[in-house]
C-alpha cells in the first residue's frame, strides 16, 4: 500500500510531470523509429533475403558493408545524391532570397503573393513527380508541345529519357516544390527586420549592395537556416519525385541513394544489403540536419538575442 502511494506521489510530483507528459511521444518513437532502427542495424549484419526467412539469423559480419563500399553503383548513387542535394538546396536558397526581396519591394498585393507562393507546398511529392512526368513527357508533355509549336525545336526532346536531361528535370521538380519554404521564411525575416540599422547605414553612406551584404543578409541568415533545417528533415522526399518521374532510370542514370535502397530491398528482396545502405542514408540525413541546425544556433548567437 505504502509502495503504491509512494509511486503515485512520485508520478504526480512536480519533477516527474514533464517526463509523464513526454512519455506518449517517447513510446511512439520507440515503437516506430528506434526499435525498428536497432532491428535494421542487426539486419544489416545478416544476409537476410525476404524470400528466405531463415536467413534473418545468418550473421555475415561486415560483408554487406564491405560489399556496398566496394560497389561502383552505390558510390555513383551516393555522390549523385549528395551533389543533387547541394545543387538543389543552394538554388532554392538563392531563388527563395530573390523572390522574398522582390515581394518585399512590392507595395501592394504582398499577402496575395505570399498565398500564391504556398501553392507548391500543398502538393504531395508524389503529385509533383506525376505533374512533371506529365509536363516533361517527350510525347504528350506540354513542354515539348510548346517548343515544337513555337518552332524552337524540330524533334521532341527526350527530357526523361536522356540521363542528364532527366536529372535536370528532377532537379526542376524538386526546386519547384521546395523554393517556397525559403521564400516564405526569408520574407518573414524581411518583415521582422528593424528599420533603424538600414537608415543608419544609409546615413553612413553605404551603397545598396553594402547594406544588403552587411546588414540585411546577416539578419536573414537565421531564417535561412530554419528553412534549411526544415528542408533537410525531408530531403528524402525526393524519393517520391524520382520514383514517379523516372524510377531511377534510364539505366540507373537518375538513381539516387533512396531509389537504390528500395530496389535492393523490395525488388531484389535483399534486405540485409538494403538495410546497410539505409544506414548510410540515415547518417547522411542526420549529418545534413545537424550541419544546418548548428549553423542556425551559431547564427542566432551571432545576432546576440536581437530576436
Amino acid at each position: 500500500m505504502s509502495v503504491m502511494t509512494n509511486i503515485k506521489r512520485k508520478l504526480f510530483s512536480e519533477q516527474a510531470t514533464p517526463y509523464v507528459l513526454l512519455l506518449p511521444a517517447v513510446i511512439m518513437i520507440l515503437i516506430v523509429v528506434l526499435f525498428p532502427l536497432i532491428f535494421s542495424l542487426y539486419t544489416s549484419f545478416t544476409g537476410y533475403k525476404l524470400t528466405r526467412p531463415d536467413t534473418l539469423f545468418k550473421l555475415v559480419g561486415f560483408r554487406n558493408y564491405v560489399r556496398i563500399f566496394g560497389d561502383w553503383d552505390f558510390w555513383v548513387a551516393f555522390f549523385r545524391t549528395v551533389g543533387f542535394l547541394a545543387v538543389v538546396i543552394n538554388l532554392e536558397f538563392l531563388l527563395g532570397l530573390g523572390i522574398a526581396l522582390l515581394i518585399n519591394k512590392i507595395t501592394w498585393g504582398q499577402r496575395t503573393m505570399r498565398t500564391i507562393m504556398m501553392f507548391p507546398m500543398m502538393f504531395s511529392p508524389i503529385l509533383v513527380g506525376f505533374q512533371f512526368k506529365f509536363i516533361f513527357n517527350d510525347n504528350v508533355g506540354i513542354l515539348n508541345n510548346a517548343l515544337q509549336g513555337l518552332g524552337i525545336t524540330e524533334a521532341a526532346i527526350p527530357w526523361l529519357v536522356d540521363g542528364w536531361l532527366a536529372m535536370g528535370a528532377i532537379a526542376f521538380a524538386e526546386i519547384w516544390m521546395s523554393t517556397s519554404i525559403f521564400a516564405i521564411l526569408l520574407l518573414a525575416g524581411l518583415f521582422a527586420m528593424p528599420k533603424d540599422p538600414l537608415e543608419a547605414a544609409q546615413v553612413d553612406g553605404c551603397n545598396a549592395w553594402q547594406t544588403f551584404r552587411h546588414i540585411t543578409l546577416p539578419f536573414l541568415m537565421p531564417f535561412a537556416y530554419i528553412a534549411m533545417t526544415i528542408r533537410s528533415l525531408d530531403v528524402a522526399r525526393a524519393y517520391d519525385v524520382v520514383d514517379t518521374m523516372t524510377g531511377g532510370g534510364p539505366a540507373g542514370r537518375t538513381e539516387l541513394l533512396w531509389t537504390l535502397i528500395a530496389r535492393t530491398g523490395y525488388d531484389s528482396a535483399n534486405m540485409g544489403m538494403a538495410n546497410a545502405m539505409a544506414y548510410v542514408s540515415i547518417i547522411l540525413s542526420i549529418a545534413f540536419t545537424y550541419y544546418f541546425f548548428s549553423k542556425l544556433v551559431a547564427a542566432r548567437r551571432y545576432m546576440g538575442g536581437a530576436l
Partner: protein
Amino acid sequence: MSTQTKAIISWIVTFIVMLIITMPGLWVILSGFRPLQEILAKPAIWIPQRLTLDNFYAIFGIGETQIAIPVLAYFRNSIIIATTSTAIAIIVGISGGYAFARYRFKFKDTLFLGLMLSRTVPGIALSLPVFIVWARLGWIDTQFGLILVYVALNVPFTIWLIDGFFRQIPKELAEAAEVDGCTRWQAFWKIEFPLAKSGIASAGIFAFLTSWNEFALASNLTRSTNSKTLPVGLTDFIAQFTTDWAGMCAMAFIIIVPALILTFLVQKHLIAGLTFGGVKG
C-alpha cells in the same frame, strides 16, 4: 532608370515568377476536366474547348466508361488514416510541447534533439525494418499499421510547433490563475490551451498534410483496398505500357483539393509557428 521603370520591371518579374509557381499545378488540375483527346492533341490545344466531368465519373465508376481502380476506397482510407493519426499526434504533441515549453528537467535538450533526429530518418530507409516487423505482427496492409507510423512521423514536428506556441504565452497568466486557486490542469485547460488553440490547429493541419501526402512508407506497407491511400493509388494509373493521363489528372485534383483548402485556412499561423519556433527556440 526612373523609379517608375524599376517598378514596372519588378512587376513583370514578379508576374513571371508567379506564373512559374502556379502554372504546372494548374495545368494538371485543369487537365482533369478535359477529355483525353484534347489533353493528348497535337499540336496542343492551349485554351480548353470543352470542360467535362467524365474523368471523375470514370474514376469513381459512374457512367459508361469505368476504370477498375477503386478510388473511392482509397479516398476513404486516406481520410480515416490521416484524421486518426492527426488527432493522436496532436494530443501527444500538446502533452510533449507543453512539457518542453513550461518545465525544466534533466536531459531536456537531449530528448528534444532525439525527437527531432527521429524525424530525419528517410521514409524509405525506415520502411525496410518497419516492413519486416509489421509483417511479423500482421500489421501490413492494415489501417492501424499505417496510422501508428504516421503518428510517430508527425509527433516531433507537432511538438516543435506547439512548444513554440506555448512559449509565446506569458508564463505569468497561468501562474496568476494558480494563485487564484486553479489547479495546474485548470490553468492549462482554461487559460493556456485556448490561447494556443489556433496554433495547435495549424500544427494539426501540418500533420494532416504529411499523412495525406506521404508515399514512401505507404507504398510499401499497403497492399490492397484495405489500406491503400490516394498517393499510392495514383501509381495504379501507370500500367506497364500505357498511362491514363486523364484519370491521373482527375485523381490529382481529388488529392490536392483538401490540402489546398486546409493550407489556405492556416497559412498565417503556419508561417508564425515556423518562424517563432525556430528563431526563439
